[in-house]
C-alpha cells in the first residue's frame, strides 16, 4: 500500500513537471556568423559628455540645472523641450534627419506629461520598425518643483536617456532597412505611464504588427547588466544575448530566483518581477518582441531591486546625482558604450529581421496558463464533486453501519444494590449508609435505628 502511494505521488510529480515544461521552450536559433563590433565607435568620454548635456552640467551648475524632472512636473516638460530640439538638431542640409513630434498626454485630466518621438525612415518598404525607448523623468521630487533639488536622476535615468541620445547621434547619418523610432518617454517612473500611452494611443495596429523589436535602456552603472525579454524562452532573447557575448558585453539573463510579485505591470500577466519594470512592458503586453536592458544586482539573497550588492540604492532618492554616479557607479560609462555598441551590432546583423520575425511567430502562447480565475474555478468544481462523494459515502456508511446510541440511565441506589435490578444500560450510584457506633450494623434492614 505504501509503495503504491509513493509510486502514485512520484508519477504525479513527474506528470506535473512534464506538463509544465512542455510548450514553454523554443529551439535555439543558429545565428549567422556575427562580426564583433568595433566598440571604439562609442568612447566612454562620449557617454559622460552626453549625460552632461542631458543634465546640463556646467561649471556654473555642477549638478546640472534641468530641475529634478519629476514626472508631471514643469521641469519634466522643460526636459522634453530640450530633447525635442536635440532630435531636430540632426540635419541633412536644411532638413531634419528625424521626423520629431511630441505626444502629449494626461493622467486623471489633471497631470500632464509628454513623450518625445523621433522617427528615421528606413530603406525598406514594408514599414518594419525598431523602437528604442528610455524614460527621461525622475522618481524623486515634487510635481511643483522647477528649481531642482540635489536629485537629478543621473543613474535613473540619465544613463539610459543619454545612451539613446548617443544612438540618435550615431544613426543620424546612417541607414537601416527598417525605420528607427527613438522614444523618450515621460512619466516613466509612474508605472511606465508614458510608454503605455505611446503604445495605446500613438501607435497604430499596423505599426505594432510591424515592430520587430522594442528595446528599453535603463539605469546603467550597477553591478551587472541584464537582458530581460519575456517570461518564456524566446528566439530573440538568446539571439541578442549571443550578439552581446560576441561583442564582449557582459549582459546576462535575470536569475530564475528573481521574486515574482502579485500585481499587474504587463497586461497579459497577473504578476511582475523587477526585470519587467521598464518602458518595454506595454510592448510585451501587445505581443511585440521586447528587450529591457538594465543594470543592478539580482544575484544575491536580497529580494529587492538592488543596484549594488550590499549598498544602499540611490534611484528615486536625493542622492541620485552626477557626482554620486561618478563616484559610486564608476562602470556607468562603459555599460553605456557597451549597450550602444550592442544595439548597433544587433541592428546591423544580417539576419536580425529574420530572427525577430521568427521569434514573434514562434513565441509560445501562455495566455491560458495565466488566466487567474481558471484555477479557482477548477478547485471549487472539484470541491463540489468531492462534497457530493462525501454525502454519498456518509449515506452509505450510515446505512451499512448504523449508529445506535447507547442510552444509559443514571440511577441512585439509595438502599444499596440489593434492592435494585441493574441492566447493562444503567449506571448506578450506590448510596450505603455508613456503619454507626452502637447500632446493629449487621442488620440489613435499612430502617433499623431510625
Amino acid at each position, binding site marked *: 500500500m505504501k509503495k503504491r502511494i509513493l509510486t502514485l505521488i512520484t508519477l504525479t*510529480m513527474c506528470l506535473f513537471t512534464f506538463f509544465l515544461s512542455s510548450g514553454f521552450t523554443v529551439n535555439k536559433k543558429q545565428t549567422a556568423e556575427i562580426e564583433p563590433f568595433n566598440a571604439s565607435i562609442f568612447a566612454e568620454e562620449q557617454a559622460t559628455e552626453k549625460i552632461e548635456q542631458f543634465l546640463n552640467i556646467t561649471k556654473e551648475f555642477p549638478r546640472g540645472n534641468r530641475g529634478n524632472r519629476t514626472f508631471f512636473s514643469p521641469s519634466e516638460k522643460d526636459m522634453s523641450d530640450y530633447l525635442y530640439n536635440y532630435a531636430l538638431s540632426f540635419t541633412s542640409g536644411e532638413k531634419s534627419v528625424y521626423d520629431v513630434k511630441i505626444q502629449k498626454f494626461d493622467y486623471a485630466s489633471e497631470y500632464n506629461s509628454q513623450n518625445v518621438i523621433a522617427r528615421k525612415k528606413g530603406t525598406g518598404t514594408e514599414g518594419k520598425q525598431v523602437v528604442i525607448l528610455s524614460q527621461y523623468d525622475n522618481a524623486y521630487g515634487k510635481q511643483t518643483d522647477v528649481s531642482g533639488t540635489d536629485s537629478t536622476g543621473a543613474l535613473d535615468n540619465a544613463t539610459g536617456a543619454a545612451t539613446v541620445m548617443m544612438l540618435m547621434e550615431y544613426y543620424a547619418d546612417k541607414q537601416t532597412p527598417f525605420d528607427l523610432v527613438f522614444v523618450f518617454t515621460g512619466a516613466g517612473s509612474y508605472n511606465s505611464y508614458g510608454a503605455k500611452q505611446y503604445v495605446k494611443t500613438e501607435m497604430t495596429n499596423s505599426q505594432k504588427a510591424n515592430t520587430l523589436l522594442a528595446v528599453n535602456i535603463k539605469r546603467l552603472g550597477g553591478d551587472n547588466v541584464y537582458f530581460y525579454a519575456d517570461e518564456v524562452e524566446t528566439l530573440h532573447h538568446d539571439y541578442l544575448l549571443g550578439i552581446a557575448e560576441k561583442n564582449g558585453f557582459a549582459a546576462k539573463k535575470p536569475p530564475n530566483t528573481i521574486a515574482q510579485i*502579485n500585481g499587474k505591470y504587463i497586461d497579459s500577466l497577473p504578476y511582475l518581477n523587477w526585470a519587467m519594470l521598464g518602458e518595454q512592458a506595454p510592448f510585451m503586453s501587445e505581443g511585440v518582441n521586447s528587450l529591457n536592458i538594465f543594470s543592478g544586482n539580482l544575484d544575491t539573497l536580497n529580494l529587492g531591486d538592488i543596484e549594488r550588492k550590499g549598498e544602499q540604492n540611490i534611484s528615486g532618492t536625493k542622492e541620485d546625482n552626477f557626482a554620486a554616479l561618478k563616484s559610486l557607479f564608476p562602470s556607468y560609462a562603459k555599460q553605456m558604450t557597451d549597450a550602444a555598441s550592442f544595439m548597433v551590432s544587433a541592428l546591423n546583423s544580417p539576419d536580425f529581421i529574420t530572427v525577430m520575425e521568427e521569434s514573434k511567430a514562434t513565441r509560445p502562447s501562455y495566455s491560458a496558463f495565466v488566466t*487567474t480565475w481558471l484555477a479557482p474555478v477548477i*478547485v471549487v468544481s472539484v470541491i463540489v464533486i468531492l462534497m457530493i462523494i462525501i*454525502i454519498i459515502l456518509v449515506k452509505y456508511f450510515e446505512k451499512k453501519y448504523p449508529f445506535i446510541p447507547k442510552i444509559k440511565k443514571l440511577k441512585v441506589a439509595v438502599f444499596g444494590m440489593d434492592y435494585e435490578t441493574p441492566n447493562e444500560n444503567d449506571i448506578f450510584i450506590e448510596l450505603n449508609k455508613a456503619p454507626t457506633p452502637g447500632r446493629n450494623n449487621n442488620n440489613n434492614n435499612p430502617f433499623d435505628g431510625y
Partner: protein
Amino acid sequence: MLKVIKEKKINEIILTIILYVSFAATSWYATRGSYALAIYQMPPAYQNSFLASDVVAFIVAGLFPLILYELFTRFVFRFAQARLGGGTNDMRYALKYFIIPANLLAFAVKLVYFAFPIASVMGNVIVDFFFTTLAVALFIVFVGKYYVDKTRWGAMLFQLGGTYLIIYAIMVVFGLIMGVML
C-alpha cells in the same frame, strides 16, 4: 510508523516545529513576492539589509499558515469531539504526520516555478489543494481505521471531510474575489 503515531513517540513541540518548517517551505515562493514588494516600500536604508533577504522571507512564510492551521484544527476537533467519540487530541496529533509530507511534496513540485514562473499562476492554487486534500483524505482513512468506530464513520467523514472542503472553498472564493475582481 503507526507505532510512532499511536504512541506519540515524537514530542508534540518538535513535531510542531517540523510542521512550521514544512509550511515555510510550501509558502516560501508566494511569500517571496509579497516580501519583495514590502521591501520596495521600505526606506532605502533597509532595502539592502538582512531584513530584505530570502532567509527572512522563508522564516516569515511559515508563521501565518501555522497560526491558521493551529486555530483551525483546534476548533474543528473540539467541535467534532462528541461526534467522533472522543480521542480527538490524538487525532489532531496524528494529522501533523500527514500534513508535513504533503507540504514538503508541494514544495518539491513548486521548485518548478523557478524555471517556469508562469506555472505559479495556476500552480499556487492547484498544487496546494491537490496535496492537502490528498493528505486529509489519507488522514480520514487512517482515523477511521485506528481511532473511530465504524458506526461513526459517516459522522466522521462529514465532520472532518466536509468541514475541510467547505473552509477550503471559502478561502479559494475569497482569493478569487480579491485577486481577480478587486
